[in-house]
């Protein structure tokens, strides 16, 4: 269950896409309208997770197919809400 305080900052699709974790860019992913910063995770190095998932994108499909629930994602800081 999400209990963190969610920053009111609105994040555009373009800003999310730029945070793809490549070459020093932060690694952000969007899930259920919230944007998480997974940059500190070993499992998202270079913006890739389990090879098939990419940072800078929506993570709905990836997480739905993943062998874990959203609880692992919810350990990471929330950057804001995805606009649009």
């Amino acid at each position, binding site marked *: 269950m999400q209990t963190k305080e969610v920053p009111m900052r609105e994040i555009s699709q373009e800003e999310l896409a730029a945070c793809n974790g490549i070459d020093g860019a932060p690694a952000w992913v969007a899930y259920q309208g919230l944007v998480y910063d997974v940059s500190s995770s070993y499992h998202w190095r270079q913006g890739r997770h*389990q*090879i*098939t998932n990419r940072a800078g994108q929506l993570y709905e499909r990836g997480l739905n197919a*993943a*062998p*874990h629930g959203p609880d692992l994602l919810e350990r990471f800081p929330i950057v804001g809400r995805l606009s649009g």
Partner: protein
Amino acid sequence: MARVAREMVEMTGINVDELLELLITNAAAELTTFYYYTILRANLIGLEGEGIKEIAEAARIEDRNHFEALVPRIYELGGKLPDDMNAFHDMSACPPARLPQDITDVKAILQVLVDAERCAVRGYAHICNLTAGKDHRTYALAQAILNEEIEHESWFSEFLGEGPSGHFMRRGETSPFVRPFMPSL
């Protein structure tokens, strides 16, 4: 490379290059875990540590077996291991299972072991999910490894007192599930 074997996988819609990356990064995780578990096992001493040493050793040997079993499938599908061992270490699908700061803290060592196994369980479940009903050979191999990783997790989890799992440690031979993929054993 087994050309037709690769073509059959490609025809199912699986991205074979991505699958190969998964197999290689998990092979790296197995070999690096074998190395780090060697150090963990050496430090499992004293009244508490000695009781865990044997299962740590079984998990260590089975992780090495997993590496050995994965390699032929990587080459069959047209992949290869990196030439550089450092690069191979750094691409591991799981973080290094390093000794905890307090090397006398057996519970902390157990936590390192169970975290490593949980990473492996998720990794092979992911490969099984990708290949189920499509790439039968990779699926069978990943499923065999998954069976052993789940048992490793259960062993260490029970020692941490997280609850019973009903599993028993190995009696005699290692890798009961992966052995069919390793004719040399």
